């Protein structure tokens, strides 16, 4: 799996990008998404980027200086924005920490954005990081292109 320019140390962003690219390629080939389609991004993660957060916490606790790239890496929006820029996803960007079933939370949010008309379709990404286990993620495209 290749890295993502501007993202360092953690597998969070590369895994998110890998599953998102795989999902979007199935619908849109090499992209981008047609400009009349507003594709939202909903990223659901209980852990967040655990590896980056731990690195920042340890660095700060020891009185050190954190690298500037961690500034934007510290929030999940940034990798969602990377995907949005690459594929032309002009819908809302929403990140959630699940309170129950992550897929159900994500689908409910996607449904709300589509009902409201701010998104025609939603790229839903579920990702979790845990210590000593591989980062796991899945992406699914919900809805079907521009609404008439």
């Amino acid at each position, binding site marked *: 799996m290749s890295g993502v320019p*501007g993202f360092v140390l953690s597998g969070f962003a590369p895994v998110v990008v890998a599953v998102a690219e795989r999902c979007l390629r199935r619908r849109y080939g090499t992209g981008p998404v047609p400009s009349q389609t*507003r594709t*939202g*991004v909903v990223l659901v*993660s*209980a*852990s*967040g980027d*655990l590896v980056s*957060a731990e690195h*920042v*916490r340890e*660095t*700060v606790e020891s*009185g*050190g*200086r*954190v*690298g*500037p790239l*961690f*500034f*934007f890496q*510290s*929030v*999940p*929006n*940034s*990798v*969602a*924005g*990377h995907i*949005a*820029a690459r*594929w*032309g*996803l*002009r*819908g*809302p*960007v*929403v*990140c*959630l*920490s*699940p*309170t129950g079933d992550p897929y159900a*939370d994500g689908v*409910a*949010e996607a449904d*709300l*954005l589509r*009902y*409201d*008309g*701010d998104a025609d379709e939603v790229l839903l990404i579920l990702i979790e990081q845990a210590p000593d286990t591989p980062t796991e993620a899945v992406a699914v495209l919900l809805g079907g292109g521009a609404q008439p």
Partner: protein
Amino acid sequence: MAEPRVVQLTGVHAVSALGRGAQAQLAGTPAFGPVRRFDTTARRVTVAATLPDAGTLADELAAAIDAACRVAGLDAARRTGCALLLAVHGGPAASALADQLAVRCGLSGRIRVYTSACVSASTAVADAATLITRGDVDRVVVAAGYLVEPDQFALFDAGRALADDGVVRPFSTRRRGLLLGDGVAAVVLESRAETRRGVEPVATVAGWGRAGDAFHPCQPDPTGAGLARAIGAALRRAGLPPQAVGYVNANATGTAQSDAAEAAALRQALDGYAGQVPISSTKALHGHALEASGLLELVVTALALRHGELPVNAGWAGPDEACPLNVILEHPRRATATHALTLNAAFGGANTALLVGTP
């Protein structure tokens, strides 16, 4: 025919370095000072807007939710079944915090936790409004909190995002960045039918919009196209023209590119009216409360409309030709506005617009 469901703000509460309680947020003097909460000697910038007696985030959020519910007249029975949408920084503790708050505050409806950086709270408000207008629920509590802490402070410092002259200067020449600030807020949103029990609403949430830039992981689109679409969606939802907006509480963080992009968005969305509508960014007073900023600024905007006094854009050092706007300078401006926009933007090109109306 069924009456359209109107979303009303029936209870609001906020805490920032400006003070405790919603009314305290209308103070017109910046609340920045040296950070004493943790060691900043390794940082370029050592200033933020912190509340000296701030408790833990959980305690402050619980107190804010209770206060907002009291204002809305929600007794224990009326809190039962009420949804809680919480906006906080993400991580393993976020959903546990939401569960804990729901139990402490007696809210037993659905829970959702937003971790979308600086549009977390405003997205939660938009979603709450949608849940109410769709008829899913009659009542939602939205709460949001950020208390200045060492990790985010170090990250913003490392990213050279903080104003090294210790002043936030939105839309101004010589603006050098943002400063962080404490912010904890809670609001109760209800359908008009629910508020017929006799509670006087603070404001209505008349429109809302969310849109993405599709531009860059952390830089705003200089054309402002995404934010302009969010503003357009909010106005369309309310069925109002740009000229109905009597005040804009801008996202403006005091950052060179972001403020210019926001000015471009306003020109796109409001046409020639962008140069006329009174505008300020209250981040120059209470600082940037990150995940909580959208809710703190919603409370400020709602109260500004209610009192007919629009907050000042502090820190002004002179005009910037990239931001040709009607900035509120020197002192708050009296106005009879009936609608106001409060705007937020975040990394990832995420944008939101909330249109607040008088009840």
